[in-house]
């Protein structure tokens, strides 16, 4: 039982990373209706920007705020420059665009900051939380920030005019345009917000996985998986999905014989697919009903 509780705790701690990333993934999915494969790389780049700012002597919280602003602007810029012209292109062409963006961002970060791993500071400290060795104050802080973001997003989408306009633009673009919503800018705004949320995720994750250009590779896969498991239409589902994936992955690694680190990912993915076969819209997602 001791082992079980510990593994669940450790799973929640890693799950927080996935939850963060999944939240960013769902955010952009809501805005543009595609999964952005370059999301992880954009988050990594943002994290490097904040690291660079700190190297130049900017205090932690200032660099945090500056990075958020830069990421927000950067996200909008990427949308305006690269993806707005592709808005009418086929979906698969857009996906190819994400892959291209992935390659560019990864390569530029590698050249600018090279591939050696870097320490990244945490504002929460890394002492054990309440005497538990498995979960540190940083990880608790991470869970806290993720939940705060979730509540913030909920309030934004539910109670502000612009949040409502964004939802409308995503759900029924044509009707939204008819009532005067500038759908094109709503998409850009979605990119900006997703990029900023990604930056927060990157900054929170970096102290755990260390900072390097490929730090997001594994995390993004889990983030996608968590988002899909929870349901792409539900940010709450994405966060829950993140924790579930984290816990399950840990338990599978502990209790199923023969599952080393190598097979953790395939097993986690296999479970997610099994869930999807029974609940195709994810655990918390609303089934999309098509009227013909």
């Amino acid at each position, binding site marked *: 039982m001791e082992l079980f509780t510990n593994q669940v705790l450790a799973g929640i701690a890693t799950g927080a990373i996935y939850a963060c990333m999944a939240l960013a993934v769902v955010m952009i999915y809501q805005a543009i209706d595609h999964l952005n494969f370059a999301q992880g790389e954009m988050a990594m780049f943002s994290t490097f920007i904040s690291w660079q700012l700190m190297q130049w002597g900017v205090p932690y919280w200032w660099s945090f705020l500056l990075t958020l602003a830069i990421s927000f602007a950067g996200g909008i810029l990427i949308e305006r420059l690269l993806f707005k012209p592709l808005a009418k292109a086929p979906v698969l062409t857009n996906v190819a665009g994400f892959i*291209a963006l992935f390659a560019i961002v990864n*390569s530029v970060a590698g050249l600018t900051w090279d591939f050696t791993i870097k320490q990244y500071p945490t504002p929460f400290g890394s002492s054990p939380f309440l005497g538990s060795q498995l979960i540190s104050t940083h990880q608790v802080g991470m869970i806290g920030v993720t939940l705060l973001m979730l509540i913030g997003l909920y309030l934004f989408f539910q109670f502000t005019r612009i949040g409502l306009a964004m939802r409308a633009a995503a759900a029924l673009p044509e009707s939204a345009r008819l009532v005067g919503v500038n759908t094109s800018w709503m998409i850009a705004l979605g990119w900006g917000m997703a990029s900023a949320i990604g930056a927060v995720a990157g900054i929170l994750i970096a102290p755990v996985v260390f900072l390097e250009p490929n730090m997001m590779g594994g995390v993004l896969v889990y983030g996608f998986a968590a988002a899909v498991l929870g349901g792409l239409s539900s940010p709450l589902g994405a966060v829950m999905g993140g924790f579930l994936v984290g816990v399950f992955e840990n338990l599978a690694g502990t209790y199923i014989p023969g599952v080393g680190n190598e097979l953790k990912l395939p097993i986690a993915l296999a479970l997610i697919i099994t869930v999807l076969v029974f609940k195709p819209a994810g655990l918390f997602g609303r089934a999309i009903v098509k009227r013909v």
Partner: protein
Amino acid sequence: MSVAAEDTVTEAPAVEAVPKRAMTLGTGTSLVILAALLVTPVFVKNFVVFQMTMVMIYGIAVLALNILTGGSGQFSLGQSAFYALGAYTSAVLMENANMNYALTLPIAGLVSFGAGYLFGKPALRLTGIYLALATFALAVAMPQLLKLHFLEHWTGGVQGLTVMKPDAPFGLPIGQDKWLYYFTLAISVAIYVGSVNLLRSRSGRAFMSIRDNEIAASAMGVDVAQYKTLAFGVSAGITGIAGGLSAIVVAFVAPDSYTINLAIALFLGMVVGGVGWLPGSFVGAAFIIFVPNIAESISKGLSGAVFGVLLFIVIFLVPHGARQVAIVAQQMLGKLKK
């Protein structure tokens, strides 16, 4: 904060409709290209011949994806898994059962067909992004499964397997590379012709009707589940043959050659070649083989960025891939004739 109204009216399908006739090149053009391919190896170096062979092999794999996505409208990021399955089937049969290399290919195709067909069953319930994730999982799992300890006796574990490169038969006076080039060319042509005919057949029309409107297709009496799994099987089978060919030509298989990167490359090949346009598969294959090399030669440190920029340029200029170029060229030729 769920999105409000979710009962949207039928939206445009993810893969745009490509009419049957627009899926191929004309007979004349095809024959000219075939003749050019037959003559080229005489004039170029062995390394170029090898690269062209690889283009054809990747072309077959991209073509298989094209049948699945462009034909039946299903999306897959798991093609690398079937490619690996085919490659390993060929390699293991050649190494452990001393089988003739040419005979291993149909078996590789059959094994992959079976795997694809079985995988298509549970995947039936998934569409779009969810199907992408499921196939992605398959691609991620495959290299790990090939490394499993209890398979090591056959698969060679992390080390992989080295196989013998076959010589030209009947004492033909050509080198190994050139022989394999013609061997691959023959198989490519056979698969290409077969695929074109498949898409023109009753089954092909069923695939396309599912792609364009699943509900309408089932109302017209198309067994949607059957044809969707069949498309998965056929696509996986052809990919398996491509994998088997690659094992013969490269003379080496290892788990890490078949990662998700391969699946992504095949996907890019399909987009660059034009989704649903079969000849484009080979153009796309050339793109994914040569462009990374070009990018590397332009800048070593920034090769990824250069590749990304080149890819962006291509999709900006021709969002519909090589198919668009072909259509424009055809129209210009038509004008010249007048």
